[in-house]
């Protein structure tokens, strides 16, 4: 394997891990409510921007990262409580427009609270690159991959071993039956928005030292995460992770070997091909419509 290929694979995996985290956020909210949350990318932006702002005020990096994820989680909870819950019973398309409104609002607020400049975050453990098979590996890449693996493990534990996690799964399988079993659907919705926001913000904090952050990074990251979630079969956790990694790798290889100007296009060409030939995604099941 050439050093160049190793380099492309490494950067693809790094970006892919970020897409996977964003995609998981999409899945969690979609499963709980069938809403496609177009504000998901803004959580990524808030994570990166808030961490950078906290570091600027002199907070140590780990605390700043924690505070940023916590702050974004609060924003996610507020979004559910103030905008989604009052509109419950509205058509899904209306709920989606509400999340679009929220993403515009959050972007506007970010430009007001912070500014419209590009910010960076210091790498978690230095910038000295490590050499692997002739390719260079930034320590931050290991942080991204390691934290993603850890987060996925924690999510697995949460959904399979805790009562709240199982309640979310129950609501995603059958909302009415879950309600009849005494599960509070309202609380499940609230928790899923908070959890998704935290995942998005975590992705934002992890990627900020590599690719910088600004008030408008959320749009593209959100769309790529959405594409990854669809590629994996909307709603499937393992599918979202696979989808994110595939998209990241395709993008890195496409930008490296074919054309860097079309970097953002490869993900969407793949997703179109996948939708036309595999309409249910990598891990999807076929469902029949009932009349």
């Amino acid at each position: 394997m050439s050093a160049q290929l190793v380099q492309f694979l490494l950067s693809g995996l790094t970006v892919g891990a970020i897409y996977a985290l964003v995609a998981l956020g999409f899945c969690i909210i979609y499963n709980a409510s069938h809403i496609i949350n177009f504000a998901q990318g803004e959580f990524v932006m808030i994570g990166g921007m808030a961490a950078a702002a906290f570091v600027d005020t002199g907070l140590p990096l780990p605390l700043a990262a924690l505070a940023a994820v916590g702050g974004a989680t609060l924003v996610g909870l507020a979004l559910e409580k103030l905008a989604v819950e009052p509109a419950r019973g509205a058509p899904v398309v209306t709920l989606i427009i509400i999340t679009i409104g929220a993403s515009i609002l959050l972007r506007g607020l970010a430009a007001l609270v912070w500014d419209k400049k590009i910010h960076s975050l210091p790498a978690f453990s230095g910038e000295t690159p490590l050499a692997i098979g002739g390719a260079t590996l930034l320590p931050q890449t290991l942080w991204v991959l390691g934290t993603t693996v850890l987060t996925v493990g924690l999510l697995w534990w949460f959904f399979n071993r805790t009562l709240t996690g199982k309640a979310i799964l129950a609501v995603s399988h059958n909302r009415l039956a879950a309600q009849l079993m005494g599960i509070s659907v309202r609380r499940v919705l609230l928790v899923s928005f908070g959890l998704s926001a935290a995942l998005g913000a975590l992705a934002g904090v992890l990627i900020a030292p590599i690719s910088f952050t600004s008030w408008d990074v959320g749009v593209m990251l959100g769309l790529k995460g959405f594409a990854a979630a669809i590629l994996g079969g909307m709603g499937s956790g393992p599918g979202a992770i696979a989808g994110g990694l595939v998209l990241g790798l395709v993008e890195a290889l496409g930008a490296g070997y074919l054309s860097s100007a079309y970097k953002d296009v490869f993900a969407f060409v793949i997703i179109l091909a996948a939708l036309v030939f595999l309409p249910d995604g990598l891990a999807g099941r076929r469902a029949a419509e009932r009349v």
Partner: protein
Amino acid sequence: MASPAAAPPSASRKGLAALAVAVALLPLALPNNYTYDVAILVGLNAIVCVGLNLLIGYAGQISLGHAGFFGLGAYGSAILAARYGWPSLAALCASIGAVALLAWAIGRPILRLKGHALAMATLGLGIIVSVVLATEDRYTGGPDGMSVPPLSIAGYAVTGEHTWYWIVGALLVATVWLAQNLIDSPRGRAWRALHGSEVAAGAIGIDPARHKLSAFVFSAALAAAAGALAAHYSGFITPAKASFMHSIELVTMVVFGGMASSLGAVVGAAVLTTLPQLLTVFKEYEMVLLGAVLMLTMIFMPQGLVPTLEKALAAARGKSR
């Protein structure tokens, strides 16, 4: 989602008459060229939204990529006229036809998808179009855009806000009239049946693929027409017109005004086109206010502006009787 009930033909005719009167009387309230410019933008967006509403509100199929068709229509006409010396009216018509053909070819495979998968596919198409337009700078001028020759009809160049106002206004009324007739035709009834349940519609002999495709192609052609007109009117076009944000704006206008209501699509386009112009006085608060207005309207009027107001009006009448 329940399939939209058709307004009785008499009610939709009243709406059409109201729109025609509004278009005819509006110039009395337009003090200068800037307001004419905003009114023309409203009209062009409204033409797109009336078409998009047939697809989203009646046939029940989402599209998050219609700005792509708008952009292709605009660039197609601009490139044919500016780079190949076509007469602008011929370029405009050829561009609309080509986009309709493209929508037909693309629509066949992707309209089999449903819900969020269809949203993703149309969104992806729109993004691919906008990146191609921004990258192929030999033809399109790249991210900075390109200038477009003015529209000329039978040797006369169409220029000036006043002339354009009447052209766009007349086209808008014609579009709404056409849309109303389509909605009240067997094709429109087939669209509404599809919206209710595709399986049930198929069982009573409606071919889902054919009817979804016709709504998609018709709405894409209207978007392309508005795009081409916008390019010749403003004399300049940038890839931002084909961007994801513009697609989202168009869908938002339809849902904001009220789905399954042609008048709603026009009102949604009017409010959401003028609002950012009015909000510019708030400068840095503009985005925050736009987002807040959008959220609050959808929270308190989940059916959209026009259907909610119509219902309130009907209730008020019922009480006074």
